[in-house]
């Protein structure tokens, strides 16, 4: 029971981070039908920028409470990554809107490689560690240890998801985004500035990604120029799991993937009689992903649309 609750908690924390990154993938996919491969890298850049700022702040003002320092880092990183995402879309994707669908995928991969190597040049190949400035209070709950950080991550993630939900459902911009996702041409005819909506989508996704990136680095205590790759891969899997293009699906998929992964890693040894160990965690996630897609090809919450005729 202890292991179960502990892994469930760990899974939920990890899952809410996946979900936040997955939102960026799914929003862009919903509108452009493009796998924005560079999104994981934007997350990484966000974490790196924030960590640099946090490092400077913690050095200059050691008396400042840790939460404020982290907040400062995030506040600097968000505009930086918004600008980055805006630029990526403008330079690498917009000219290719009418090109075959695989062309922007290749530029996305190219941008991904560029960002990764830029980060390596700027921050080096080593792990950048997260300064220990956040409170490390722990609670006991049903036999599991829960840290304040974990609670903060889940609560913040849920708040952001709710905020995004409101944005998409209740505001003018949200309505424009939904209209663009349904049909770019018709939205344009109705007076929606499609280019601006697409830019906004990238920018919002980047802002959320920064927060997710800082969460990951705070949770694991480090950041690395390569961290965006696996995170992006998992997040994209989560988005597909939930039904890509569907915002609620991305949230569900992220949480589910996190929990499955954590429980899988915790129990895989017992299930297979010690044959497979916890380093098969990633395999577990992908097996579940394949299983779900085989039985429900459009994802959990994806709409079942009749085949294009």
């Amino acid at each position, binding site marked *: 029971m202890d292991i179960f609750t502990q892994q469930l908690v760990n899974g939920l924390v990890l899952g809410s981070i996946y979900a936040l990154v997955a939102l960026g993938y799914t929003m862009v*996919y919903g509108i452009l*039908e493009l*796998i924005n491969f560079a999104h994981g890298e934007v997350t990484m850049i966000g974490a790196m920028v924030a960590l640099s700022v946090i490092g400077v702040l913690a050095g200059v003002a050691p008396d400042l409470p840790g939460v404020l320092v982290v907040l400062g880092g995030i506040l600097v990183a968000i505009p930086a990554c918004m600008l980055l995402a805006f630029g990526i879309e403008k*330079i*690498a994707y917009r*000219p*290719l809107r*009418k*090109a*075959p*669908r*695989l*062309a*922007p*995928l*290749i*530029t996305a*991969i*190219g*941008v*991904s*490689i*560029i960002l*990764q*190597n*830029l980060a*390596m*040049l700027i921050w080096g190949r080593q792990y950048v560690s997260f300064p220990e400035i956040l409170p490390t209070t722990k609670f006991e709950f049903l036999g599991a240890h829960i840290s304040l950080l974990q609670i903060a991550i889940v609560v913040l993630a849920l708040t952001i998801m709710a905020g995004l939900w409101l944005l998409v459902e209740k505001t003018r911009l949200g309505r424009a985004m939904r209209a663009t996702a349904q049909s770019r041409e018709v939205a344009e005819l109705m007076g929606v500035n499609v280019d601006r909506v697409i830019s906004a989508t990238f920018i919002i996704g980047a802002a959320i990604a920064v927060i997710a990136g800082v969460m990951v680095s705070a949770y694991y205590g480090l950041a690395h120029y390569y961290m965006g790759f696996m995170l992006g*891969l998992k997040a*994209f*899997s989560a988005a*597909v799991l939930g039904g*890509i293009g569907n915002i609620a699906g991305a949230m569900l998929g992220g949480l589910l993937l996190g929990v499955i992964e954590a429980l899988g890693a915790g129990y895989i040894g017992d299930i297979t009689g*010690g*044959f*497979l*160990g916890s*380093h*098969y965690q*990633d*395999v577990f996630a*992908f*097996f579940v*992903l*394949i299983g779900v*897609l*085989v039985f429900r*090809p*459009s*994802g959990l919450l994806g709409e079942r*649309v009749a*085949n*294009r*005729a």
Partner: protein
Amino acid sequence: MNRALDGLRKRPRLTAILLAILLAALPFMMGFGLGNSWVRVLDFVLLYVLLAIGLNIVVGYAGLLDLGYIAFYALGAYLYAWLASPHFGLHLPFWLVLPIGAMLAGLFGVLLGAPTLRLRGDYLAIVTLGFGEIIRIFMNNLNAPFNLTNGPQGMNLIDPVSIAGFSFGKPLHVFGMTFPPTYFYYYLFLAFTLLAIFVALRLQDSRIGRAWAAIREDEIAAAAMGINTRNMKLLAFAMGATFGGLAGGLFAAFQGFISPESFNLWESILVLCMIVLGGMGNIPGVILGAVLLTAIPEALRYLGDFQRATLGHVAVDPADLRMLLFGVALVAMMLFRPAGLLPSRQRKREFAAEDGVAEQEQASLYDARA
């Protein structure tokens, strides 16, 4: 220059002879001109051409976006290592091991293809990606409870290819010159690559190739025309995987060492970039893409010399810079030639067509709206 090209086009036999001489002399030209390390690059170019041709069958011909292609390459390589290295004490000859590896990979192609038949577009991409990762993670971890893959350390001392008692493993000394094994492998790889090109070209216009094109453009219409879409898709997966497995076996013999590191997702993506960049579905384009993307990173190794010559010192480590420039090149080439450097005739037509029509046509390629 143009007149010379026209002249060649009118004399296909002369062109073929000139090309054959060029291909036969290439390693010597490279070896004496640029150094023996470039012969090794040449070998890798051929391996990647082989891989790209295989993936092109799946992606370019049949329109199934496969992001886990490298898994088949890995299977071919590991099978070669199991059957021809001290790991299990087996030393079977390569002409036996290669076909077994290719067949195993083909079998896995069908195994992967079967459950994914209903998936389309990007869903298929993510499932194949997952499959590739699963294979890699297993290779990484199957050193316990029994040692199958030797884990992250990989397997070494793999037998080199040997034909009629002549081992490719040792350099050859003739006429006072030394030729490293890379020369022999060049001709071996060239033979396999030419075979693959021949098969791929013949497939393209065959009944099967036309069925694949029909599925790619509109699966429902293809089914309505009486094409067995299930079998045809499985065949595409199997054929592509077979080429991948073959290339993997050659790679293992050539390197003498394999580890899971060589088979990560980036390799799959790299091969995909080759075919998209070169011109999907078009064999000359695919070859060009493979040549460029293998040669560019190698050529960028000279960045260090370049910096020394211009700045007087090495400001940025060329190893760090070259992947960056590779990314820039990828983006730039795609922005200027979105249909690839050498698009197939059909895609060129789609681009030349009126905007609206072209858009509609292209939407059908790799459409994910399931």
